């Protein structure tokens, strides 16, 4: 059973009606299937309507939806023969980051990504998808392996933020993020990035520097959580409850981010969000990855790197 977000309230009510009607008619042995079908149609229309005018804040909630598919859900649907690798060979293995390799159709690829947990226990074990230094270093190890073997790298981004506990500082969370940015910018193999949920600030960009940046329609990408932004800035009266306004000001939704030239492609989600139909979402991701890789793999490495550099080199807004 799906959980409903506040802006889905009309849909939840409709769902309740339908379920109630189904139960009632089944119990009574009545056939009201036409009526039910009509309600379903109405529900779909309403969904379409609501989802056609989502606010950035609505997308924040969708991006954080506890039923939203996570990296490993997509990996297992998109890749054959996936083998997960573990550890940074320096200090530890961070469950907030996954890394491994597998086959995308016939093509060997390396995959990295943030990984959130589904139930409470797993969520804690995976630190809610907040990576520690060893997580980024594990990902880097995998990416360097991809570079060595000539396999493209696919990164699934989904994190509220990097871990900033003192233990992470001690082991160089800053260095690990900076190092990944430096290495990813010069990695001699194609790098595809898919922001599948929360693209949370430095924790996200540490796995999001690549040749082609994609965002799922309802994912978000932001320099700061909107609530924190609202708390810090007097423009929002330093009031966390004005997070929705901050979300709008930050332009963190997929489409807005694309308009700003930061993201190359937005992948449509199934109606109602990826969690309503993970298989359909995975298919879209898979097809897109294959197509984009076909293109990128035709570039020679120097051209690939030059384009990657220029792609980010361009992003900024200044004049005299």
């Amino acid at each position: 059973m799906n959980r409903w977000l506040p802006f889905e309230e009309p849909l939840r009510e409709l769902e309740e009606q339908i379920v109630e009607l189904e139960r009632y008619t089944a119990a009574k042995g009545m056939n009201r299937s036409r009526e039910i079908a009509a309600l379903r149609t109405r529900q779909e229309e309403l969904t379409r309507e609501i989802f056609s005018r989502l606010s950035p804040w609505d997308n924040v909630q969708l991006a954080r939806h506890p039923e939203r598919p996570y990296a490993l859900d997509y990996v297992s649907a998109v890749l054959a023969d996936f083998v997960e690798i573990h550890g940074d060979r320096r200090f530890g293995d961070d469950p907030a980051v996954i890394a491994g390799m597998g086959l995308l159709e016939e093509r060997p690829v390396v995959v990295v990504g943030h990984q959130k947990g589904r139930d409470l226990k797993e969520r804690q074990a995976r630190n809610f998808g907040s990576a520690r230094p060893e997580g980024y270093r594990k990902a880097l190890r995998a990416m360097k392996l991809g570079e060595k073997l000539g396999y493209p790298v696919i990164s699934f981004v989904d994190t509220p933020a990097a871990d900033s506990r003192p233990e992470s500082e001690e082991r160089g969370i800053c260095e690990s993020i900076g190092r990944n940015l430096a290495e990813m910018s010069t990695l001699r193999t194609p790098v595809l990035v898919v922001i599948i949920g929360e693209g949370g600030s430095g924790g996200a960009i540490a796995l999001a520097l690549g040749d082609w940046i994609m965002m799922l329609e309802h994912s978000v990408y932001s320099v700061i959580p909107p609530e924190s932004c609202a708390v810090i800035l007097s423009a929002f009266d330093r009031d966390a409850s004005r997070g929705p306004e901050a979300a709008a000001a930050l332009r963190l939704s997929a489409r807005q981010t694309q308009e700003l030239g930061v993201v190359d492609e937005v992948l449509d989600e199934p109606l109602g969000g990826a969690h309503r139909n993970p298989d359909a979402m995975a298919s879209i991701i898979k097809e897109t990855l294959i197509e984009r890789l076909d293109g990128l793999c035709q570039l020679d490495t120097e051209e690939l790197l030059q384009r990657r550099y220029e792609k980010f080199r361009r992003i900024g807004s200044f004049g005299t």
Partner: protein
Amino acid sequence: MPSKAKKASARKTAKAPLRERVMKGVPDDLWVKCTGCSTMLYSKELEQSLKVCQKCGYHLRLSAEERIRLLVDEGSFQERDTDLTTQDPLSFPSYKKDIARYRKQTGCADSMVWGEATIGERAIILGVSEFGFMGGSMGSVMGEKVVRAAEEAAIKRQPLVLVCSGGGARMHEGIISLMQMARTTAAMARLADAKVPYIAIFADPMLAGIAASFAFIADIIIAEPGAIVGFAGPRVVEQAYRIKLPPGSMTAEFHLAHGMVDMVLARREIRPMLVRLMNILR
């Protein structure tokens, strides 16, 4: 393109008296309160001690201009891109007003200054952040200047010296400011590929988006004593995780102990060390 940067935009550092800047925002012109020990310090003396408290050794913040004067051979700094200013890409609430205000307050167009200079007669490329301008936060302008500095250093094959400080990415530029982490660091990676050395100096505070991008990947890192350095500031961490940090957490010395910086040097020792390094890095 830095190679085409017009000499026209370069100018000698204004030689305004240091006191003008030291006193910025301080009600009494003659006395400054030490951030470290709250002692009232006589500003003339403070100036002579390079703004290091002689009571407690606290390193007060320097403006970009003061920092430059401290580090480079006298009169050698040629600023580039003086007037580069942000275009407010998100039309973010009150951002334009803020920019105007800080511009007036600091006399800088944004939070970063870069240019050419010599240290011990060795030509270098220098970048210095200006904490006074919106907490030294990194938006498009700092990003662009860091990129240009790195590209220029690569082209000229001159060491890059960056004084890194600031509160992090500038949220008023949203995702555009986050992207500055990527592009500045990519420029450093190219500088490394060009086999040109890069020396970073960490000054209080050096946090978040600046710390977690180009700062920690420098070849050699020198930090000022007591400088707060890290992904999140100590107070933010204490609130976020509801913990109490031991004193000295996320300071320069903390990072030295954990192998993240090469040395912690008193302000007075930094220029001599740079001269020494430049003598090696010919």
